């Protein structure tokens, strides 16, 4: 698979990130660069620092050194909700949907930064709010159709199965109309059929919606199948970057996974 649009400047870049919790150095000088229209996987053994890297990208952790650049702009100090407004969407490890809301309401919350009505509009409802709700309900339906959730649009998300909740989580992220999508272990805990569905959705997001995807994933089969670029991290350091086939053959990667021989 060729890297789509690799000639353009990277969408999201982390430069020499350094993160420590007390004496533990979680990230030592990690850099990654996500090209437009690419699926970029981050892999590595447990405790390598993958999730910490994602949390630096989405703004939960503030690295002690290094910078994060998004869309040509330094966002290292930006708070998470402002990163979302800037165009970074994210899905989570495990279940992080809003359990008391319906599937459609979950997706509608993803529109938060694109909608304009506020507190007083909400109390009155009639007029502005009604028009806006109507417009975005239509847009939510498009996402519902894309993710094949039609039958469940009014189902309370807390009652849905694990795989379906992950799909709602994805829908909510797409609703941000993001310029990049960050996914933390999307395949974890899914059965093979659900994994297949989700892999198809991720490819569709890249191809149809032209949104690059950053993916932390443990399922090597999925990673090797769908990724354009793979970054391998071990003990807080990047040990290999490249196309899936290159990375698979890399000596350092094999050593990291199987133990140094």
């Amino acid at each position: 698979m060729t890297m789509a649009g690799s000639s353009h400047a990277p969408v999201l870049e982390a430069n020499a990130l350094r993160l420590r919790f007390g004496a533990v150095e979680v990230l030592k000088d990690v850099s990654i660069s996500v090209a437009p229209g690419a699926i970029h996987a981050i892999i590595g053994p447990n405790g390598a620092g993958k999730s910490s890297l994602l949390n630096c990208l989405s703004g939960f952790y503030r690295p002690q050194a290094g910078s994060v650049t998004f869309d040509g702009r330094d966002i290292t100090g930006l708070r998470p909700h402002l990163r979302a407004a800037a165009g970074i969407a994210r899905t989570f490890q495990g279940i992080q949907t809003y359990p008391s809301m319906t599937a459609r309401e979950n997706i509608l919350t993803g529109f938060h930064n694109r909608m304009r009505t506020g507190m007083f509009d909400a109390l009155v409802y009639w007029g502005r709010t009604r028009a806006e709700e109507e417009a975005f309900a239509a847009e939510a339906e498009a996402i519902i159709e894309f993710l094949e959730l039609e039958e469940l649009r009014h189902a309370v998300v807390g009652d849905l199965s694990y795989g379906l909740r992950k799909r709602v989580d994805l829908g909510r992220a797409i609703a941000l109309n993001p310029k990049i999508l960050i996914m933390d272990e999307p395949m974890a805990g899914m059965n093979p059929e659900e994994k297949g569905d989700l892999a198809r959705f991720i490819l569709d997001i890249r191809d149809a919606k032209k949104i690059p995807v950053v993916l932390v994933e443990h399922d090597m089969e999925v990673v090797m199948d769908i990724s354009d670029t793979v970054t391998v991290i071990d003990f807080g350091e990047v040990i290999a970057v490249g196309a899936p086939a290159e990375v698979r053959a890399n000596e350092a990667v094999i050593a990291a996974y199987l133990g140094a021989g």
Partner: protein
Amino acid sequence: MIPTGIYFDTYAGEASLLKTARARVWTALLVLGLIAAPFASGAYLLGVATQMFIILIAVYGLHVTVGMAGQINIAQSAFVGIGALTTARFGEYGLPFWAAIPLAALVTGAVSVVFALPAARVKGFYLALTTLAAQALFPIVILGLPETWLGGLVGIPVEPLTVGGYVLSTPKQLYYFTLCLVLVATYAAFNLHRSRFGRALKAVRDNDVAAEVMGINVLSYKIQAFFVGSLFAGVAGACMAWVLQFVTVESFTLFASVWYLGMLIVGGIYSPIGAILGVLFITVVQEGLHEFGAAILNSGTHEAGGTIFAATNVALGACILLALIFEPRGLAHRWRVLKTVFQLWPFPHR
């Protein structure tokens, strides 16, 4: 759940509050019943109903802060007090009612923000203590200020309510006035649930980490939750000032705050229906027990009045306990189950 055969061809239709003809008819009948009630009941019952409407407005506010946004608030009564004091104080300058109500709401909202600023940074038990501090500070501040400011220990007399040149002072007039406000407040409370603002509050309650990453400014929405909750409290306070015609600190106790919270919990914190059912349930049981106690007292028993008063309070506590044991999710849940059963009848499954 809506009955079979009802479908919508617009999103607005789907979002309407009363989705079926049957729901519209029942609601219209309920409102007509409330309008007709004064012709069939005495002054005492009207007074109870008026009081109930005012409490309901305050509990709607609590529903927003506690139920929708998940931020515990044990100071609602103090916020109602601020609304009442504002109304009393500005009434002296001859402010008309249509300006006094928004003013009371906004002043109360502004004061709540002062307490919400630290509160928005803490969670759970710590938040409970922060709001408790607001409630505890309320009388201390009022009593500490010069008496000419907010009445101090004495209180402030309230200029009578005038609407379009008429002075409203009889129980019937005040009943209609509060009925209008409670209808507007009900509409507003339901509206919050079908808006961007309401969804953001629920997102903060359900999962604040995800909400932040999805672009919701969690800190700001926690503060706004207190603000909107206090808007309702301010309106309730304004009504209370006009009905009581005299505002003192003593009317706005921690005890009342806990009652408001209790009503919301018994009714179900997650929907405005819960607020309605909770306020109705507690008021009816309370008043029923009062009547019952008075009847026993008048029947010439040898029991002392104090014993009977204590016994009615124990019975009230028992009623609340029973409601919580048999319906921990609140009366609103029971209401939904009943409605579903009724709609599915005679078939037990969909």
